């Protein structure tokens, strides 16, 4: 199965949770924000939100800005 992650296709294993994906990508979960199928995915649900085939996921972080 695959996801649309930040606009590109990404193959992932079945039954991956959001939290697991973030760790696999080498991200610090406490410092990123996730949008799952156009909805804000609150941090407390990352552990038990299992990603499905063709889900759209946006992972964002803070950068410099004025």
């Amino acid at each position, binding site marked *: 199965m695959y996801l649309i992650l*930040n*606009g590109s296709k990404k193959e992932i294993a079945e039954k991956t949770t959001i939290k697991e994906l973030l760790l696999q*990508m080498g*991200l*610090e979960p*406490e*410092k*990123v*924000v*996730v*949008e799952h199928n156009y909805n*804000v*995915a*609150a*941090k407390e649900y990352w552990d038990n939100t299992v990603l499905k085939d063709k889900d759209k996921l*946006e*992972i*964002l*972080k*803070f*950068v*410099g*800005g*004025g």
Partner: protein
Amino acid sequence: MKDKLVIGGRELKNRLFIGTGKFSNNRIIPDVIKKSGAEVITVALRRIDFGSAEENMLNYIPEDCILMPNTSGARNADEAVRIAKLARASGCGNWIKIEVISDNKYLLPDNFETVKATEILAKDGFVVLPYMSPDLMAAKRIKEAGAAAVMPLGAPIGTNKGLKTKELVKIIVDEISLPVIVDAGLGKPSEAAECMEIGVAAVLVNTAIATAGNPAVMAEAFKLAVKAGRKAYLSGCGTTNEFANASSPLTGFL
């Protein structure tokens, strides 16, 4: 008497807010923040580019600072609302700087969409600080929509031209009972002082510090200028005498 600035229930000691964009190296940001004394720090939210090793800005901002994400990139109210909600989901607080820009030439904010976004986000419990063009009627609508402050621009973003909108900003300061924060356009500490002297509550500076030869020293210079301007305002600025003596007194008949 204590001179307090309270926004969104938070009491702030420092009236200089700083932005974190355009620095040549993010590693100097902690020192810039320290020297500026700023408690409110602006950041932007962006999709992670997995191909680059861009660092997360949160690594450089001290924990005790108030994080004020902006909605840069938003071209209308809906996009601003979407970005604001994502920013809040980071767990870094509920402050948001609304920035809606649909004009790529001058980068001037869209006051109409800003009012709409303010209303939605204020109702949703955000502490909303909208960046705006200094228009009194728009400022009134923004206040009615529930904003915690209004942030008129001093000059177009990034131009370092100073307080070009002084007359209009002064009107907003006089008429709107919210903290007025001049955001964008300030290039020199003297211009930050000029803002403070007319009663502006705080200033937000980014480019002028980020692009200075020595950003940390410039940050400190802005801090001092903001303090000087504020003190001048509180002490009641004297003005130059504009009056020539009338040849015959106007009140001589009394």
